[in-house]
């Protein structure tokens, strides 16, 4: 439904119209258009009330919070190990990264060092998650610009990634993978086989997907100079991850503050130059190749050893010991009831999530739950630039910009 809207702020509006070569107010009144909250093109629950001048967007007022679940409040009432499932539900396209990020934060607080093997398994899982995240973002960008085939084609690969998750932790989407102190089990022969197969098959698929879009004239014309943002503005808006790198800033948490043995692997940080939708697409494409490279290195050099730290106070004992050994039973009981001794402290740990720096700021007062747990959610922080990015553009471009930013509603609203 379009309604006429004669705004009072004529001077500002007239200036805008002059800047963008639009018709004057008297000739063509503004149209108010409601985009979202639920619409197939928004890929999540976001509402934007747009002021349109013909096809051009004059202003946008975003409304968020439709799936706010108060994770920060819930986290203040949960024992530490029960918070991992909350993190799954933030960026549900790459839940293992969130899980591992949270585990590493608590390990930092507890002072646990995780063995190399567990760190490498984590790297493999996190990079698989990054691939599945970027794969959805880029293929949906294709869908929104009219190319549906690639989406279904790579969705099959996401299924294979989910099969690996299923073999490693038993779940597919909301993984709850690993534990504080390591992984909950070692990689099974089947999991290793699945990873091996994935490494063999996926490059061909991804090369074909790239072939379909990267030099596709329609796609390039639709995405170049759409939703561009300068590096200065992006930094001021707190952009991180692929969206920041598309503007030309090479900030990557994996390189700047390596965690979980990322310093052992060789990979490059792809950067763009203009920060437009096409650059974001290219950066994500290249990051998928780099992630594959990391997985290959981690898979080939997977060290021997334990898959969890020797921290009986915080890491659940094997179930068979719980039935036979008194000590294991006590530890099991204490951990499950949330009575493990947590030191007083304050830590910040960040990982490179699918969309940028995913940070966990944890304050512990020594109690059974965190005193305060704040999530630095990249989507929440960069989505506020959306208004600025789509102003002066067309409605169809606004949809493309939204998909290329890869805003995940779960992470946005937490």
């Amino acid at each position: 439904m379009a309604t006429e809207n004669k705004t009072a702020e004529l001077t500002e509006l007239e200036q805008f119209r002059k800047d963008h070569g639009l018709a004057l107010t008297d000739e063509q009144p503004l149209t108010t258009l409601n985009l979202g909250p639920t619409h197939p093109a928004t890929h999540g629950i976001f509402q934007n009330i747009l002021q349109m001048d013909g096809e051009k967007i004059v202003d946008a007022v975003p409304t968020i919070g439709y799936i706010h679940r108060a994770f920060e409040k819930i986290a203040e009432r949960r024992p530490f190990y029960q918070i991992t499932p909350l993190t799954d539900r933030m960026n549900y396209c790459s839940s293992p990264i969130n899980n591992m990020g949270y585990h590493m934060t608590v390990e930092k607080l507890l002072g646990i060092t995780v063995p190399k093997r567990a760190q490498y398994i984590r790297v493999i899982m996190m990079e698989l998650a990054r691939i599945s995240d970027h794969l959805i973002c880029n293929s949906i960008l294709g869908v929104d610009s009219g190319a549906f085939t690639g989406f279904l084609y790579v969705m099959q690969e996401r299924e294979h990634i989910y099969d690996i998750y299923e073999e490693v932790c038993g779940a597919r989407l909301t993984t709850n993978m690993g534990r504080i102190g390591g992984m909950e089990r070692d990689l099974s022969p089947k999991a290793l086989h699945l990873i091996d197969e994935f490494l063999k098959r996926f490059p061909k698929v991804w090369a074909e997907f790239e072939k379909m879009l990267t030099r596709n004239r329609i796609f390039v014309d639709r995405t170049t100079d759409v939703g561009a943002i300068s590096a200065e503005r992006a930094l001021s808006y707190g952009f991180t991850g692929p969206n920041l790198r598309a503007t030309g800033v090479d900030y990557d948490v994996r390189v700047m503050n390596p965690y979980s043995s990322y310093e052992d692997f060789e990979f490059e940080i792809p950067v763009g130059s203009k920060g437009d939708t096409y650059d974001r697409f290219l950066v994500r494409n290249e990051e998928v190749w780099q992630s594959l490279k990391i997985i290959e290195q981690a898979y080939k050099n997977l060290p021997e050893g334990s898959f969890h730290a020797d921290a009986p106070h915080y890491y659940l004992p094997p179930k068979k010991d719980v039935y036979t050994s008194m000590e294991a039973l006590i530890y099991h009981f204490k951990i499950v009831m949330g009575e493990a001794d947590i030191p007083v402290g304050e830590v910040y740990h960040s990982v490179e999530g699918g969309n940028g720096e995913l940070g966990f700021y944890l304050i512990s007062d020594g109690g059974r739950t965190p005193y305060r747990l704040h999530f630095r959610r990249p989507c929440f922080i960069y989505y506020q630039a959306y208004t600025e990015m789509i102003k002066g553009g067309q409605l169809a471009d606004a949809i493309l910009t939204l998909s290329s930013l890869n805003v995940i509603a779960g992470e946005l609203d937490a």
Partner: protein
Amino acid sequence: MELTNENVLGKIISQFGEDNIWDAFSPDGIMTITTNRETIHDLIQYLRDDKELQISFLTTMCGIHYPGQGDKEMCMMYQLHSLRHNYRIRIKVFMPASDPVMPTMTDLYATANWMEREAFDFYGFKFLGHPNLTRILNIEEMEYHPMLKQYPLEDQTREDKIDTYFGR
């Protein structure tokens, strides 16, 4: 110049004086300092604009509530990052719950806009000069600020869930 906790703290104190900067410690390697409401805006601007420091990336900010602490009941935490030097710093400002008023950072960082709206929504902080200080995640009709510690997560009048052994 390589930034270390010592020389950054030295620079900040020589700029703002020991009366305005106190309680410096680094719980997890990130230097945490406490300042007051009068200094916080100038301090963040100084960190951003100083040529040697270039701590010009606002990573995150959040509120914290310490009930029963008098003048130190409400806390705002700012975490900044120098991408040039890979140096992080955390700044805290404490204030009484009766007067949770802060200057806004929206003129320095565009990203402060929603972060401050979130702090207002969750804790009721008022940011002077904020262009649009309204609730962001919760509904506008909400009458309280839910992250304050006096609001329990579950309805405490329920009797079917009492489990006194584990503090619930």
